């Protein structure tokens, strides 16, 4: 018996038959089945995932120290390796700590992926081939064929909106697994940063070619990943983006509030309206100026924001200021 046959018997067939049986209690909906089975498998793997995430978090916390070592011993590879190992040992962190749980989970994810493809049976040959994976349970035979229509999707054909969701959810998930980028990031960190963009782009492109059932599985899996990630490591590398977004939203809200108040004062002559030039509303005016960025206050605020952003080079913002002053 070759390894493929063993794989089929031990992992793939149970997965396929569970999927088909589960669909029977989910009104024959293949879309719901994909979502629920992904949830179940995620649940079963939860202890391993937690272990992996914690190990990953511990590795993240070492990044500044590793970067410092890189800076200090960058030229001497041997010394660098020794120091890194010493650091791992002292901190009680194993570099393979996040790799091992991931390796154990990998076959299950591959099996789930293969099971979805086989059950989806996008062409007649695939449907014929599916017969080789079925148990002789009546529930399995009565459930087929599964209903490929879910929400607006035909799960056997590609869907562009879902492809975009794959990319977006993967970007969020990838970003959250990374520590916020600091000044003097190591090459490994920079590489990870570029992968954060490359991988979601690649998966978006692939999802545009693949049946949307597979994309639905990726989206579900990514969403579950980043929810779990949030409870273990927080926003991670998404923190600066989140902060910027909150600032932008509160800025917009404040501007709306300011406009409302001004409109009331001007048009209705409301004497009870707050004084827009004092107290809390001073901030509103400041915000407006910041948004416009056309006066000195705005410039100062810009600089303050830049200074707050982690990883931004202060010298760059100084140079920016210089340039603006010259223009003036």
């Amino acid at each position, binding site marked *: 018996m070759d390894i493929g046959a063993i794989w089929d018997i031990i992992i793939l067939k149970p997965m396929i038959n569970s999927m088909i049986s589960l669909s029977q209690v989910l009104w024959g909906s293949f879309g719901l089945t994909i979502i629920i089975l992904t949830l179940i498998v995620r649940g079963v793997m939860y202890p391993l995932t937690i272990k992996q995430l914690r190990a990953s978090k511990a590795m993240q916390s070492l990044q500044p120290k590793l970067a410092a070592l890189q800076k200090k011993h960058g030229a001497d590879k041997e010394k660098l390796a020794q120091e890194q190992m010493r650091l791992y040992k002292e901190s009680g962190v194993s570099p393979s700590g996040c790799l091992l749980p991931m390796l154990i989970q990998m076959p299950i994810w591959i099996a789930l992926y293969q099971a979805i493809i086989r059950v989806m049976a996008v062409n*007649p040959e*695939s449907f014929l081939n599916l017969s080789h994976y*079925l148990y002789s349970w009546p529930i399995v*035979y009565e459930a*087929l064929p599964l209903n490929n229509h879910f929400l607006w999707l035909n799960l*056997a054909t590609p869907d562009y909106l879902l492809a975009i969701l794959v990319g977006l959810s993967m970007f969020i998930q990838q970003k959250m697994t990374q520590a916020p980028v600091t000044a003097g990031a190591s090459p490994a960190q920079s590489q990870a940063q570029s*992968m954060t963009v490359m991988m979601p782009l690649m998966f978006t492109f692939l999802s*545009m*070619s693949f049946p949307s059932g597979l994309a639905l599985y990726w989206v579900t899996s990514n969403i579950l990943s980043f929810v779990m990630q949030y409870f273990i490591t927080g926003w991670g590398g998404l923190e600066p983006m989140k902060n910027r977004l909150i600032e932008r939203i509160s800025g917009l809200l404040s501007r709306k509030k300011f406009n409302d108040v001004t409109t009331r004062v001007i048009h209705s002559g409301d004497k009870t309206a707050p004084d827009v030039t004092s107290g809390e509303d001073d901030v509103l005016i400041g915000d407006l100026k910041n948004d416009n960025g056309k006066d000195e206050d705005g410039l100062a605020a810009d600089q303050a924001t830049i200074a707050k952003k982690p990883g931004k080079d202060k010298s760059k913002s100084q140079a920016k200021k210089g340039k603006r002053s010259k223009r003036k």
Partner: protein
Amino acid sequence: MHNNKRTLKVILLTSLLALGLIVSGCVGMGTAQSGWSGVVAGSQSVYLGSGAGKLVALNSDNGFYQWQEDLEASAAGGGLGCAGASAAVVYSTPVLYGETVYIGDGGGRLYAFNVNDRQSKNVVLNTGKSGAIIGSPLIAHESVYVGSTDGNLYAYDAASLTYRWQYNTGGEIWAAPAVWGNSIFAASFDKKLYSIDAESGQSNWDEPFETNGPIIASPLVYGDVVIIASLDRHVYAVDAETGELVWSYPAGDNDENAPKRWLWATPVTGDGKIYIPGMDGKVYVIEASAGGLEGIIEIGESVASTPVFAGNRLVLATESGKIYSVDTDNYQKIELRNIDTELSSPLGVDGQIVFVHSVKGNTVYAINGETGALLWSTSLN
């Protein structure tokens, strides 16, 4: 320099990942589309739909090429070509009627070729909705009836291919329709068998006959009953007039002789018996009038191709490529030949000669159904 190395690493890693995904995606998507058209025999020729999307005519005596015609390619698939059809794929076995060969393709186009001058007509079944023709067309009442994966059974004028009517079922139609008097039977993926009036396109029965599984095998008319093999692993005999159940095999749920896997291939009849090949490697022999089990022929491997009778011997092919001949008196089988490639196309027959189309092997074989002697084989390159 350092930056270049890093960029190179990223590109390499990404390329490897992309390659892995493409390979696992395309291969894992299963099984590439190649079709499973069978062979139909004419007076001096045999006709089939090739894996390359052509209608091919071979000399039935020696297998020499007579002619071939391209069928039109269907719409392209996804960006990487991993999803959906991209070229003409032929599942439908051609049907010869007079001097015209009818065939359908995976793009939902029905063709009529004159075998003498090769003039052809074709029509797309449904321009508004994509659908493929999987089953063979049926020619009756000067019309051509054909099912589509869009769920409709269509009727066209056989001579002009002008549209007559269509009847919507609740699921894809993969099976060839069957005729009984003025009734056309269509089996559907919605697990039902429909009886439709050949002229008006209206339903003959109050309710379609319902099974517990999709029906892929074509209905078989035997006297006044229609026999259907369902993927629920049951065979049903249905009164052709009323749509009432006459018998089913197995009759109960706990029959130890019940088929264990799908009944994919279309049953065949001979000597008052019905032969039902199963994907569990057995052929179930059922007495046609009452549905009693007459015997089980152990083949040992899955059978997906529709068998044929060559003289008084039942010839069938396993999915792995073994061709067997079975004596219908004592159910003894002999292995005629091992082609050793996947076989799912229906077998064709002309007297004692059995025609086998191996789509994977891209070859047509002519075999003596009694002795197993290879008469000729033609590669369809």
